[in-house]
């Protein structure tokens, strides 16, 4: 583009004053955003479950302070328990997705992969799971059997045994068919030391494949939009891919995050805030299936805000970025991995998108709830 530098258009005194005032307002906002969120709501709305800012205020404003401890405050996907000479990692997750079967997956597969992936993101090799079922009165036994078979097969494929469990039944209407809670235990792998606050300017940002498939598949499976496509949920176990990454570039990895509710945008904003860095994402480099892009276009949703169940964000030191990309691409399911951006110094805590059209904009976390009960 033609430079505007020498045209005399910028920098007249009036304009400078205006942009200084604007910058001051923006600085106040950023200071407010950097503070820990307060939980001030009078009741729970669906937005608190959407993985965006309302969820963040519930976690940071109510839960973390109530259970105050250093492990929880680190806000990683799994917490560590330093016992038995090694670092044991634990995590837990509940699944309330509607419908319980959808193209590419089922609630049972999500329940295993979701928890296994949370352990993997902490750099922990998954060792065992517990399983808790909440069943609605009247649930057909055949549906339950199907889901139990899916859970068994997914756990076997991940090589993680289910070692304990619990079952509850509630009156018809008190839950929607079935809810599942899984808790996982793993052991921290010493090939890497991962932390959401370890990012530095210059680090590269990668995604392990095309984004937005899971959320889009669920959305279309609900049949509310009269849209059809062949998009399937991307639910998969990420441990083999993480294992490859740890092997190839372990010491150069800063952080791993699976981009579930709230999508890639929420993960990036959390990391930018935790590490006090800026991020610039190159829109044209982000892999998105054309049908996902099309559905997002029609529904007015950004694919960066759409949930994934088998995709992770990888932050790697600059010199190891190409090797990390090669490692991701060599693993099954990582063929479309890409380097999508870079960490910068300023503006601290913000994620910016360099648009494919050539402009720049902020990419914020999701507010509100375009689609409840996605996982």
């Amino acid at each position, binding site marked *: *583009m*033609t430079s*505007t530098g020498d*045209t*005399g*258009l*910028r920098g007249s005194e009036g*304009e400078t004053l205006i*942009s200084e*005032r*604007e*910058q001051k*307002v*923006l600085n*106040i*906002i950023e200071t*407010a955003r950097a503070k820990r969120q307060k939980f001030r709501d009078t*009741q*729970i*709305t*669906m*937005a608190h479950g959407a993985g965006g*800012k*309302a969820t963040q*205020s519930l976690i940071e404003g109510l839960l973390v302070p109530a259970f105050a401890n250093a492990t929880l405050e680190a806000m990683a996907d799994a917490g560590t328990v330093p016992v038995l000479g090694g670092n044991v990692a634990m995590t837990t997750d509940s699944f309330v997705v509607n419908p319980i079967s959808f193209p590419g997956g089922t609630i049972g597969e999500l329940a295993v992969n979701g928890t296994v992936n949370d352990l993997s993101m902490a750099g922990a090799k998954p060792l065992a799971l517990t399983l808790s079922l909440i069943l609605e009165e009247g649930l057909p036994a055949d549906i339950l059997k199907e889901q139990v078979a899916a859970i068994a097969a997914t756990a076997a494929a991940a090589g993680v045994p289910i070692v304990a469990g619990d079952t509850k039944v509630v009156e018809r209407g008190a839950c929607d068919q079935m809810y599942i809670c899984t808790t996982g235990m793993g052991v921290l792998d010493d090939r890497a030391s991962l932390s959401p606050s370890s990012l530095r300017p210059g680090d590269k940002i990668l995604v392990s494949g095309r984004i937005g498939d899971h959320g889009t598949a669920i959305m279309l499976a609900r049949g*509310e*939009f009269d849209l059809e496509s062949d998009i399937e949920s991307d639910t998969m176990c990420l441990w083999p891919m993480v294992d490859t990454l740890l092997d190839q570039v372990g010491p150069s990895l800063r952080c791993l995050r699976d981009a579930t509710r709230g999508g890639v945008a929420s993960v990036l904003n959390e990391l930018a805030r935790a590490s006090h860095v*800026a991020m*610039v994402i190159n829109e044209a480099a982000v892999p998105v299936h*054309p049908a996902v*892009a*099309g559905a997002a*276009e029609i*529904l*007015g949703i950004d694919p960066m805000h759409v949930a994934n169940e088998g995709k992770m964000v990888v932050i790697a030191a600059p010199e190891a970025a190409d090797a990390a990309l090669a490692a991701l691409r060599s693993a099954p399911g990582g063929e479309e991995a890409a380097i999508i951006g870079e960490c*910068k*110094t*300023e*503006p601290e805590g*913000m994620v*910016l*998108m360099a*648009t*494919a*059209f*050539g*402009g*720049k*904009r*902020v*990419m*914020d976390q999701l*507010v*509100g709830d*375009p689609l409840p009960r996605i996982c």
Partner: protein
Amino acid sequence: MKYVDEFRDPALGEVLAGEILGLVEPGRHYKFMEVCGGHTHSIYKYGIDDLLPANVELVHGPGCPVCVIPMGRVDDGISLAHQPDVIFTCFGDMLRVPGSAGTLLDAKAEGADIRMVYSPLDALRIAKANPERPVIFFAIGFETTAPSTALTLKRAKAEGVANFFCMCNHVTIVPPLRALLDSPDLRLDGFIGPGHVSTVVGVRPFEFIPTEYGKPIAVAGFEPLDVLHAIHMILTQIKEGRCEVENQYARVVPYDGNPRALQVMSEVFELRPHFEWRGMGFISQSGLKLSEAYADMDAEIQYGVPGIRVADPKACQCGEVLKGVIKPWECKVFGSGCTPERPIGTCMVSSEGACAAYYNYGRFAREREVV
């Protein structure tokens, strides 16, 4: 995506931006209003501002349908949603708009059966699936969405769906534009005309802008090249001393609009004597209600609503933002008291609202370096 990517071509954008730079006189400041919230959204989403010379300023207009709904109407909607057995349906953006005592989302959490729909036909489908329960559709929008509401009501009547009702908040675009142009504190050099509305009403209704008020206008599409092209057209008019209505969006917008859509609107709706706009007060003949023939489907008549006028919160400057008098960040509560997660004003709620668009996408001064 075919027919979309062509209008997002960065190379063409660069060429247009270069030509725009050649059209502006250094030292002169240009202020153009994009009337439609869809344009505001596009401008921020694609970073179009970044491609414009610093002396071309875009001012956001009153064309976001959610943003112009006054608090009293939200309260009326919530009171309908709390009626026994009612299923209340509306577009997603409306759910978070604050009334005087909470939002529709709060009402939902309190037990009201409120469902988000993407189209009035979805609401009609819900009515047919629940024949024993009244289903109310909270209709909002300019002439863009009014025809689909009208068609849905026509269909419901033809099919004898007796449990389908509509609370009509549809508005028309020309009266608020006149109100704006008559307002003394506004200084504008031209308008980017609302493309979606124009697909229905055509280009003709905007002729008064150049003829009566002497401002050029280009009706524009919503892709980034459309917006840049419209700015190019307006600047060319100014440079050549012309002042007229031009149609940048001719691939979709016919000069006389869509006669069938206008026909069905006139069957189903009639003008209200006046309608309240957020921050702009009452504007004559700017709102639509259901006509006599559809009175039995008019939720306001069938159920009665409190209809109490609620003053906008004192701190909120949505009215000035809607009129383009101030920029979103110049509002006293922008980003501190009023944020997308806790909006005070409507402009912070809808993705098309100028404040939400600026907060979500634009919260980064144009001149600032990334290092």
